């Protein structure tokens, strides 16, 4: 059974065919996933208040039902340090097609991973784990399994990645919290089984993993037609 709030958010999103990012973030936090602190603002003073509450520096992202790929329209700005830069960004976002708001989120650091799902016609929900970021389709360092995953599947997937050494801490970098990553993957696999009748595909990209936690920094949920 889906939580009522989640069903409501999914129903509302149906007309766009996908779930706007703040709603997607909300769905994942409702299910106990860790996300950075965030809020949505439409006006300048509101934005500044949100950013101060979260604490500069922040990241700003366009919210628009017309923009699925935010980076393609320079709809993501990281490292905003003050009100002035924030409001300038907001003014620019306003001119982007379909603007309904600006998502302002805490900046987090870590290793960029992707955790995704695709509802395959023949095999049902498939789970993908790999190295994330904008280059994900260039490097294709990913592993794929049919959901629901066992813990052994999750471990095998991480072991399959070319960049697996980065997870354990490479050349002085801190190892990531593997237990948190495993938990995120397993919870995600369970959630995708619950959502298999409504969801077409999901990208959590990036999921920022560091020594303490794995945070879902960006979530895109595409719905079934």
């Amino acid at each position, binding site marked *: 059974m889906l939580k009522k709030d989640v069903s409501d958010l999914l129903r509302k999103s149906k007309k766009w065919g*996908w779930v706007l990012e703040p709603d997607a973030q909300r769905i994942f936090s409702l299910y106990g996933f860790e996300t950075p602190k965030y809020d949505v603002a439409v006006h300048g003073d509101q934005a500044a208040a949100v950013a101060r509450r979260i604490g500069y520096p922040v990241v700003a992202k366009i919210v628009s039902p017309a923009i*699925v*790929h935010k980076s393609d329209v320079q709809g993501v700005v990281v490292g905003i340090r003050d009100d002035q830069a924030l409001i300038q960004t907001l003014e620019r976002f306003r001119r982007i097609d379909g603007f309904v708001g600006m998502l302002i989120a805490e900046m987090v650091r870590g290793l960029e991973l*992707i955790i*995704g*799902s*695709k509802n*395959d*016609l*023949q*095999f*049902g929900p*498939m789970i*993908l784990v*790999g190295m994330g970021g904008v280059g*994900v*389709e260039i490097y*294709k360092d*990913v*592993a*794929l*399994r*049919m959901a629901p995953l066992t813990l052994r*599947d999750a471990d095998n997937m991480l072991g399959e990645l070319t960049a697996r050494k980065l997870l354990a801490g490479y050349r002085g970098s801190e190892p990531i919290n593997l237990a948190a990553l495993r938990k995120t993957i397993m919870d995600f696999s369970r959630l995708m089984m619950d959502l298999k009748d409504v969801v*077409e*595909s*999901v*990208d959590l*990209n990036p999921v920022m993993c560091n020594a303490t936690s794995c945070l879902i920094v960006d979530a*895109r949920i*595409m719905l079934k037609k």
Partner: protein
Amino acid sequence: MNLKPLFAPRTMAVVGVSATNGRHPANVIFDKNHHRYPVEVFGVNPRGGRLYDEPLYRRIGDIPKKIDLAVIAARADFVPDLIAECIDAGAKSAAVISGGFTEAGRADLQERMVAIAREARFPVIGPNCLGLFVPFRVDTLFLPIERMIHPNPGGVAFVSQSGGILVDQMIKFTQQGVGMSKAVSIGNKALVREIDLLKYLLSDPDTRVIAFYVEGFAAGEGRRFVLAADCAPKPVILMKSGKSEAGHRAVSSHTASLAGDYASFTAAIAQHHILEAVNELELVSFCEVLSSYTKPIDGRIGIITGSGGHGAMAVDACVAARLSVPEFSESLQERLQAGVSENIRSIASMGNPVDLTGSGVDDDFVACVKAMGASDEIDCIIVLLLPYLPGVTLDIGVRLSHARKPSKKPVIAYVPHVEKYNMMIDGFELNGTPVSSSIEGAVLMAKGLMRKKPC
């Protein structure tokens, strides 16, 4: 659904036999079963008449015996009613050879046929297929008997969506000395599908390895299939076509783009301990090796050869297949050295590959298989045999097969497959040691054993 009558019929009706046209597919099927198989065959034709001085029955119900298998090669329009007739007459199963259904825009006919059969739990193979072949039992392939290659009885069952691939693979299995238990062409797979045959073959005592050629599964069917095959007591092998994505479909998520249809197929079957054969050579090699050996290996390979070049080629193929060829310890090298004939001790190399040179004799190969069999530095042995070497005799196959048995370590041989060397090849194969006709094939056999991951 009880599928047994399909594979072991004692009585068969062939529907559509012509009294005048001996080349009609139904007549070909009638003839071969009538003359060659231990099954009582009855011809059916709505106009009646006689064939070989025996009556052609107008209806299946007119046949004086209960029919185990009805082979239907009549026009598609008649098929749904013929299936109903089979059921009324108490027949136990049918193979519909006729085309002209979904593949020709007549999904309605196929649906009617399925509805009738499903209600009666009546197993139907096809339509639009060649049906089935069981060595020395039954053969519904409408191919003249003198043109067919008949595989020996053995442990491999092969189920194919395509009839052409099935027959071709029967030829390739035969060329490689791989025996078959069942060959099934399922065509449009309207009722009996891969998963039904998987379940049947898992309990079939004649079948040790189950292989499929699949073009695609229906919605959700791939998931049901891999779950049914997971950790099965017999190895399951899939070969798939249609791997390339159709054009550049617009996908709006990274995951959907990275997890295409074929990527998902490959991942899902490997996750559930099913072997994927990416081409025909892998299919034949995996089937052959897994009908001889059932225990998975880590993939540490010891190679014995009579030629340095063969050894080097095999090492390259092993590395490409992610098998390792570890260099032997000094103590193992000493034991190997001590076991071979004195005249080659100074010229043979023992490091792995073990190169016995062109002067090696049968006894040297036997000694090396024994020493490597007793060592835990490797878990599989590939012997590259050059039958034209003067010291190698036709007995080598039998001798190596006996030599490998105490250690239970799998031995795989390469021998060029030409008629002249058949007795040597038989010496291996009839004693349970798989032989490939190429170095690459022998390495693929080892890869098959490694890929068969334990559950």
